[in-house]
C-alpha cells in the first residue's frame, strides 16, 4: 500500500466524483427552483450518452457529441417541463415524482426501440487516449479531461448564477417565486429553462461517463440512486453541497475499493445513512441557491 497507489486512487475518486457532481448539480438545480425531484434524471443521463452515440454513428466526432448531448437533452427537458410537469403544479409534492418516474420507463423503452437492447461502445476519442504521468503514477488522460470539464462547467454555472441577471432571477425564484412573479418576471419560463439546464447537465454527465462505463439503455438505472445519495448527502438544492458530496462519495468509494472491493458500491449508502442520522438536511442543506 504505497502512497503513490493511494494518490492514484484519490484521483480516480475525483474523476468518479466529477460525474457524481454533475448529476447532483442537475438534480439540485431542478429541485431548488421547481421543488421537483426528477426521477427521470438517470434516464436523461442515459439519453445524453445515446445522443453521443447517435452523433458518432452519423459520422460526427466525440466533440460534436459533447456539444450535442446537453443541447438535445436540454431541449427535451424543456419540452418535458412545459407539457408534463407544468400541469402538475399546485397538486402536491409527489406528483412530479410519479410523472418523472413514468417518463423514465418511457424513455428507456424508446431508446431500446431506437438503438436496440445491446450495449453500444463509445470509445475515448483519439486525442484523449493514453495516460499522463502525474509524478506518482500514470493517470488516464480521459479522466483528467472529465475532471477538467466538470470544473469548467461548475465555473460557468457559478458565473451564470452569481454574475448574470438570469442567475439572479433564478436564485430569487428559488427563494420566493410569488414575489418574483409579482415583480413581473415570467417564472414559468425560468422554470422551463432551469429544468432544461438540469437535464442538460445530466446528459453531459452521461456522455462523459459513456467511455468509462458502457452505453446500455439500462445505464441510467443505478445512476439515479447514485444521484440521489449524493444530493441527500450534500443537501437538496445546494450546489456547493453537491460538489462537496460528489467529491466525498467518489473519493471514499475509490479508496474503499482498494481494501474491500465488494463494499465500494455500498460505501455511499453508509455515508448517506450517517448523514441522515447526524444531519438529515445534508451537509449544506437548505432550499435555495445560497452558495
Amino acid at each position, binding site marked *: 500500500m504505497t502512497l503513490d497507489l493511494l494518490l492514484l486512487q484519490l484521483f480516480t475518486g475525483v474523476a468518479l466524483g466529477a460525474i457524481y457532481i454533475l448529476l447532483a448539480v442537475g438534480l439540485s438545480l431542478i429541485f431548488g427552483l421547481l421543488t421537483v425531484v426528477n426521477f427521470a434524471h438517470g434516464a436523461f443521463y442515459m439519453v445524453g450518452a445515446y445522443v453521443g452515440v447517435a452523433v458518432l454513428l452519423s459520422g460526427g466526432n466525440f466533440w460534436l457529441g459533447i456539444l450535442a448531448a446537453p443541447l438535445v437533452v436540454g431541449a427535451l427537458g424543456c419540452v418535458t417541463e412545459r407539457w408534463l410537469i407544468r400541469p402538475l403544479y399546485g397538486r402536491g409534492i409527489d406528483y412530479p415524482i410519479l410523472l418523472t418516474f413514468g*417518463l423514465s*420507463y418511457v424513455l428507456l423503452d424508446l431508446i431500446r426501440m431506437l438503438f436496440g437492447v445491446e450495449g453500444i461502445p463509445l470509445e475515448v476519442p483519439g486525442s484523449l487516449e493514453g495516460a499522463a504521468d502525474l509524478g506518482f503514477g500514470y493517470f488516464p488522460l480521459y479522466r483528467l479531461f472529465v475532471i477538467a470539464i466538470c470544473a469548467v462547467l461548475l465555473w460557468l454555472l457559478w458565473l451564470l448564477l452569481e454574475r448574470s441577471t438570469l442567475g439572479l432571477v433564478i436564485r430569487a425564484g428559488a427563494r420566493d417565486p410569488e414575489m418574483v412573479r409579482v415583480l413581473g418576471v415570467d417564472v414559468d419560463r425560468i422554470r422551463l429553462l432551469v429544468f432544461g439546464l438540469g437535464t442538460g447537465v445530466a446528459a453531459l454527465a452521461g456522455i462523459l461517463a459513456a467511455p468509462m462505463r458502457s452505453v446500455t439503455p439500462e445505464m441510467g438505472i443505478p445512476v*439515479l440512486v447514485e444521484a440521489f445519495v449524493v444530493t441527500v448527502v450534500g443537501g437538496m438544492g445546494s450546489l456547493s453541497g453537491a460538489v462537496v458530496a460528489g467529491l466525498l462519495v467518489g473519493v471514499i468509494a475509490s479508496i474503499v475499493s482498494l481494501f474491500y472491493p465488494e463494499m465500494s458500491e455500498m460505501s455511499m*449508502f453508509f455515508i448517506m*445513512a450517517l448523514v441522515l442520522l447526524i444531519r438529515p438536511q445534508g451537509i449544506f442543506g437548505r432550499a435555495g441557491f445560497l452558495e
Partner: protein
Amino acid sequence: MRQILHDWGLRYRTIFTGISLALLPFITPHDALATNILIFGLFAVGFNLLFGYLGLLSFGHAAFFGGGAYGAGLAIAHLDMGFLGAVCFGVLLATGLSIIIGIFAIRSKGIYFAMITLALAQLVYYVFFQMTSLTGGENGLRGITVKSIDLGYYSINLLNSKEKYYFLFIFVFLALALVSRILKSPFGGAIEAIRENENRAVACGYNVKVTKYIAFCISGGFCGLAGALYALHISIVPIDILHYQTSGMVVMMALLGGMGSFFGPFIGAAIFLLIEDVVGVWTSYWQLVAGVVFILFVLYFPKGIWGSLVDWARR
C-alpha cells in the same frame, strides 16, 4: 342510491373484495395471471396503506416485498421450514427491514422520503446481491419448491394452479380482513388525519412521528407477506425483486387503481399485469405502453380507476 351503494361497499369491502378475488380465476385467461394479480394486489394494498391512506410516497417497498420473498425462500432452502413457517419468517424479515429502514426514513420530510426510501432499499438490494452463499446473488434463490401441503385428511397439491390460487387466496383474504380492521380502528383514523392535515393532527395531540413509523412497519409487514407468497408461487426468488424497479411498479399499480381506496390496488395490479401480458404478446416494449398510460393517469386520472369510481359514488 349512490350513497347507499357507497356506504354498503365501505362496510363490506373485505367481503366484496374477497368475492371478486375468488371469482378471478374464472375471468382471467390463465391462472398464473390471476395468482399474480392476487399477490401483487396484496403488495399494492400494503403499499397503499402508506401511500394512499397516510400520504407517504415510498420508493423503497421492494425491500419489504423482496425481504418477505427472500425470508420465505431462505427458510425453506436453509432452515428446512414448511410453508407456514416460511411465510412467517418472510413476514418477520420484511417487518425487521421496515423497522430498521423506518428509523432513517421517517426522520425525513416530504420529498426526501421518496429519495431516501429508494436509496435505502437499493442498499438492501446490494447487500443481498453480495451474500451469494446465502441468497444466490445474481442468480437468485433457487430450489424452493413446495409441492404440496399435507393437512392430514387432505393434501393441497400446489402444482395444480387452481388449488395453489385458492390456497394463497386464504392468506390474502385474512390479510385484507386485518388491513380493513386496522383502517377502521382509531389508528386508521389517525393515519387519515395525518394525510389530510399533518399540522392539525399534531395540534390534536396525535403523535405523528410514532404513528407514521408504526404505519410504515405495518405496511412493510403486509408487503412482506405478499413477497413470501410470491416466492412460494414462482418457486424462486430473483434478485431483481429487491430492485427499485419493483418499488416503482407497485407505485404505478397503486396510482392506476386508485390510492386511498381499498379495492383500488387490485384493479391497479390487474391493469399493470394485463398491460404486461397483453401488450407483451404484440411487442416487447410493453414498458413504453405502461409508462405512457401511467403518465396519462398522473396527469388526468390521479385518483385511478377505482378511486375515480369511489369519488363519483361519493358525490
